[in-house]
């Protein structure tokens, strides 16, 4: 193996320094890591998964099964990057790259674990299902896990951002080879929005190394002109279309050469295309023969590509083994480069291509195959034998065996789109059957065997795509000289040689014997074969092994290949970095969060902000040296004794308007709302059709045809969707409309005995007397010259006023109220403090005290079920046997036997039944109550109300600790509510 002085695009490019296994080496600008390694004579690049046999570079692009390396480098922005499983054939060589082999110790060149191969007789496919059972798998698993896996995760977190981009086009052409370019050219001529995508850096696909003439010019000139002519189109080189999703949506991964600082070069594209042309080419199949996994056995097409594109001669004494004509391009190129070439062509009459090769100096062995190779970390010799008598061997010195077993069209995307495959006996390949709607197939994918056929097929596909979008174009198709039809391929699978080891899946070490074993044990479905032997489950996903595997299975089960069929093609076509899949959705940008209008003020006042539902809200306002718990107690006490200020702006505000507003809401809400008088407010529940409580909140009637609903902060979206659903589908004739104005208003609550004294200092036209503004009523008016309203609603149990002004003024009103109330000890309080206060009152918090099974009666609210005649949402569910059984869990208070002990939320109440504990419910809220000077709790307990009436004591259980508590009514403070009405 050596670099030739010239004869390729990059032969005289600038040198690029890199290291392999710590050893400095030199490649050229434009090399892949694989071509650079070959140029430096590196044979062994890895070790196989099970037997740790040496592995060398086999292919030249996405099909590569062996060269999976640990790669560290600095990207063009100087950021340290690492890829534990980099496919060397698809890595563009950059200065300073450090590559290392994986899965070998101390190195892949000299791997101690290679000794395992000596025991290969006792380690067939699926051996681990038949042993490792005594004492049990846990004894053996750690060792097996250390042996498995390829690269190692560096713990250096990847600091980069990954970009996602959506795009739309009329015609997406996948594949920038001759067929794809011809299709894009034809489609673009109609003025349609065309997108042409290819996973290589340069356009032309196989033309890059196969040459040929198009329109009487070198193919590369035609490529350059065509690409230049596609200036209007979106051209995406270095981009792999990795997945076909519903309705012509495709996922693309672009490997940019440059990205802005802080951004990864990977960019994910979502493309929606009205028409798609698939010109994804084909993948060469290896031949299957004894020890065909040795480093130095390579794909014939890859050898040609390394020679023509990277000026790397992969061997001096070459045996080319083939069953079809395509390998002869490689033979001619090798002869021209001065290599000694012998060809073993399985066909007895290989035809004109073989004659041309002989004239070029190659020795032809017709009707022959490669029957074996010698050498462990490289090829020393190869044996050729007539197919008809495999035992008569001719040993040839060789340092390279280039193999071609035929070509499998890259049907991955076509199959993902739901396309069915058909076995073509003449081509010995699975070809796409009928294209899916909006889909056109061209080139080698569609079985085109010559450059002329590719160009014609691509052109036709481009025109067909345009025609499907009512664009008719007449454009002359590109022409290539007609080449004589190739001599037919002769299907050649594994060789009938007993006692030999013939590889099908190089990376996962699956041999022909393994397929025979699977067939013998009746793992006879192709899907069983894959899972039992792990054939095609490695990081190349069977690109070079699947067809050889199922052909072997067909032979061992007496079936034809089409009867065996293929396994399912799944995205992604090539592995895609998880960072690219997630895009910008990480850290703060992972999921949106809502801020209150007075957000900045809360931070300034030292609030401990926490996420509640989708809002960021103050939990409490710890002062210097205060713990959160102390702050909560202080704030709660202040509200009980003086006054507190709370930001309730996140509470839902849905305006409902229309002549049928009252009638409609009455059909939805559990409580009676049609009789509510304007200016009055009622606490109501909303049920799901299953009768369970979706949300609670207050309903205020503004006018005969106007209501204001106030669902809880985290349920506003669900409530609005529910109202729209019932109105649009069940009651479309009712004249009512809903406006979600939650974000338009700031709502601040002043609560406590001194609350009204503070509000009197507020300049407002609203009459604050109890006569004019009783508890559970509201009034509109100006507040400091701003349009607003004041509602007397309390969740603390104290006299409370909720003041609403346009959201832009929320911050200023917060400061203003603090100033007005300073002399009355006004104290900002957060949600955790509010939770203590509402717990003292036994007020329910939906989603904390209740859960997805709670019915209204469980919360002690059975009135409306009896009173309301209309069929409100969920009504019938309140009459089922389960809804009316006596042992349901009910909402109650609990006073711990030890007043100083606050039982943890989530503590269960238990009873002893038959020597075992049974849970009869749990604590949903608990706190030390400043008002009572002791611990209190709320919970849902079976037959809770009866226990409360009897003042019964229950046993509590939390993480093994027992305690006791008396069951009480939920309200611990001012049960008559005198403070509210005052």
């Amino acid at each position, binding site marked *: 193996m050596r670099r030739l002085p010239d004869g390729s695009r990059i032969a005289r490019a600038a040198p690029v320094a890199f290291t392999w296994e710590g050893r400095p080496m030199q490649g050229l600008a434009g090399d892949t890591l694989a071509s650079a390694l070959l140029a430096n004579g590196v044979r062994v690049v890895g070790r196989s998964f099970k037997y740790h046999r040496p592995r060398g570079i086999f292919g030249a692009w996405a099909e590569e099964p062996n060269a999976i390396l640990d790669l560290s480098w600095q990207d063009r922005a100087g950021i340290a990057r690492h890829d534990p499983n980099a496919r060397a054939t698809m890595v563009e060589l950059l200065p300073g790259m450090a590559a290392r082999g994986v899965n070998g110790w101390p190195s892949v060149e000299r791997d101690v674990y290679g000794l395992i191969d000596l025991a290969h007789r006792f380690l067939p496919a699926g051996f681990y299902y038949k042993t490792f059972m005594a004492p049990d798998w846990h004894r053996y698993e750690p060792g097996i896990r250390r042996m498995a896996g390829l690269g190692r995760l560096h713990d250096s977190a990847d600091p980069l*951002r990954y970009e996602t981009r959506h795009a739309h086009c009329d015609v997406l052409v996948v594949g920038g080879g001759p067929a794809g370019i011809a299709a894009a050219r034809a489609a673009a001529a109609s003025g349609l929005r065309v997108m042409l995508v290819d996973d290589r850096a340069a356009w032309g696909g196989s033309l890059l190394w196969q040459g040929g003439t198009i329109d009487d010019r070198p193919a590369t000139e035609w490529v350059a002109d065509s690409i230049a002519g596609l200036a209007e189109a979106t051209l995406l080189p270095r981009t792999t279309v990795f997945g076909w999703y519903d309705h012509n949506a495709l996922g693309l991964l672009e490997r940019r050469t440059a990205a802005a600082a802080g951004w990864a070069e990977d960019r994910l594209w979502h493309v929606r295309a009205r028409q798609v042309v698939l010109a994804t080419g084909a993948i060469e199949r290896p031949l299957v023969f004894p020890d065909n996994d040795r480093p130095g056995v390579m794909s014939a097409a890859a050898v040609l590509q390394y020679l023509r594109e990277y000026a790397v001669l992969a061997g001096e004494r070459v045996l080319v083994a083939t069953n079809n004509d395509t390998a002869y391009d490689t033979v001619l190129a090798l002869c021209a480069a001065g290599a000694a070439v012998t060809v073993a062509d399985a066909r007895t009459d290989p035809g004109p291509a073989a004659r041309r090769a002989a004239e070029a100096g190659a020795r032809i062995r017709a009707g022959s195959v490669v029957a074996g190779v010698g050498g462990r970390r490289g090829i020393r010799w190869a044996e050729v034998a007539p197919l008809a008598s495999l035992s008569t061997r001719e040993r040839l010195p060789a340092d390279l065996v280039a193999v071609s077993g035929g070509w499998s069209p890259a049907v991955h995307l076509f199959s993902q789109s739901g396309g069915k495959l058909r076995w073509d006996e003449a081509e010995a390949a699975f070809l796409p059957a009928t294209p899916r709607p909006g889909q056109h197939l061209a080139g080698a994918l569609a079985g085109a065997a010559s450059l002329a056929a590719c160009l014609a097929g691509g052109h036709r596909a481009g025109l067909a795509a345009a025609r499907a979008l009512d664009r008719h174009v007449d454009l002359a198709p590109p022409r290539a000289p007609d080449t004589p039809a190739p001599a037919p391929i002769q299907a050649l699978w594994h060789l009938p040689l007993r006692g030999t080891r013939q590889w099908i899946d190089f990376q996962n070490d699956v041999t022909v014997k393994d397929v025979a074993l699977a067939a013998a044990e009746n793992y006879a479905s192709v899907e069983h074969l894959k899972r039992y032997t792990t054939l095609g489950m490695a990081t190349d996903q069977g690109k070079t092994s699947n067809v050889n595997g199922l052909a072997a299975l067909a032979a061992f089960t007496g079936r034809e290949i089409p009867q065996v069929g293929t396994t399912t093609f799944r995205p992604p076509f090539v592995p895609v970095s998880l960072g690219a899949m997630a895009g910008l959705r990480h850290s703060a940008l992972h999921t949106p969060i809502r801020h209150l209008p007075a957000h900045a003020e809360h931070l300034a006042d030292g609030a401990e902000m926490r996420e509640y539902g989708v809002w960021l809200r103050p939990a409490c306002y710890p002062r210097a040296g205060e713990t959160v718990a102390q702050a909560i107690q202080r704030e709660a006490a202040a509200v009980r004794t003086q006054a507190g200020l709370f930001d309730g702006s996140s509470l839902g505000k849905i305006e409902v308007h229309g002549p049928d507003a009252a009638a409609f809401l009455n059909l939805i809400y559990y409580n009676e709302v049609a009789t509510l008088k304007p200016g009055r407010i009622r606490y109501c529940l909303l049920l799901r059709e299953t009768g369970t409580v979706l949300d609670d909140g207050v309903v205020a009637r503004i006018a005969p045809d106007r209501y204001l609903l106030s669902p809880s902060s985290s349920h506003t979206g669900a409530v609005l969707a529910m109202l729209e659903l019932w109105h649009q589908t069940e009651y479309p004739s009712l004249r009512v409309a809903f406006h979600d104005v939650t974000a338009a208003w700031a709502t601040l609550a002043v609560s406590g005995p001194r609350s009204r004294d503070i509000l009197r200092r507020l300049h407002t036209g609203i009459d604050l007397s109890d006569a004019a503004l009783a508890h559970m009523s509201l009034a509109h008016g100006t507040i400091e010259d701003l349009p607003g309203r004041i509602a007397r609603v309390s969740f603390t149990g104290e006299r409370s006023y909720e003041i609403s002004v346009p959201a832009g003024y929320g911050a200023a009103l917060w400061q203003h109220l603090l100033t007005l109330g300073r002399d009355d000890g006004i104290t900002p309080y957060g949600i955790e403090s509010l939770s203590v206060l509402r717990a003292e009152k036994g007020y329910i918090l939906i989603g904390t005290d209740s859960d997805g099974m709670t019915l209204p009666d469980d919360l002690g609210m059975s009135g409306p079920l009896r009173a309301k005649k209309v069929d409100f949402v969920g009504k019938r569910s309140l009459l089922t046997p389960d809804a009316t059984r006596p042992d349901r869990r009910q909402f109650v208070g609990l006073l711990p036997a030890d007043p100083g002990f606050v039982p943890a939320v989530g503590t269960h109440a238990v009873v002893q039944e038959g020597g075992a504990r049974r849970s009869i419910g749990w604590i949903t809220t608990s706190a030390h109550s400043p008002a009572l000077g002791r611990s209190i709790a709320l919970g849902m307990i079976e037959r809770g109300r009866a226990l409360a009436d009897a003042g019964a004591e229950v046993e509590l259980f939390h993480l093994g600790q027992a305690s006791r508590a008396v069951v009480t009514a939920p309200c611990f403070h001012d049960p008559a509510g005198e403070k509210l009405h005052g």
Partner: protein
Amino acid sequence: MADLARHPVAARIEAPGLVVTTRAPAGQWLVTGTDMEPNTRAGTDPYALWLAPGRRLVVADTPAPAPDDTFVSDVTDGLVLIEIIGSRSMDLLAMGCPLDPLSLPQGACAQTLFAGIRVVLYRHGAAVRMHVERPLASWLLDWFRQAATSLR
């Protein structure tokens, strides 16, 4: 009488070929009543954006009286107007929204998801305008700040 100050949500984000700024419209109203052609914009100042059958958002750049219709809610402070202008604005939109820009000519408007958030999107002269709920504005502007660095 205290003169309470109004705190708008304001931001300006610049990158090569891109300027993202917040605007404070004089008025925004959620209106139910007369219908209009779905997903279109009518009028220049004030102008109306279709939201649903029989529902529109009326936006006034300069002070104007509230619209007169069956059901009007003033949401001036409830929505933040973000304006995106510059040669790279389409690239930025393509990062956040699956909508095809061609389906948004002058005179069209669309309610869609941008960075996962519901927005109203439409062209306004050379710029693209976007209304987002006030509480989500700061998060979305943070998204713009981070996304814009990809254009440097």
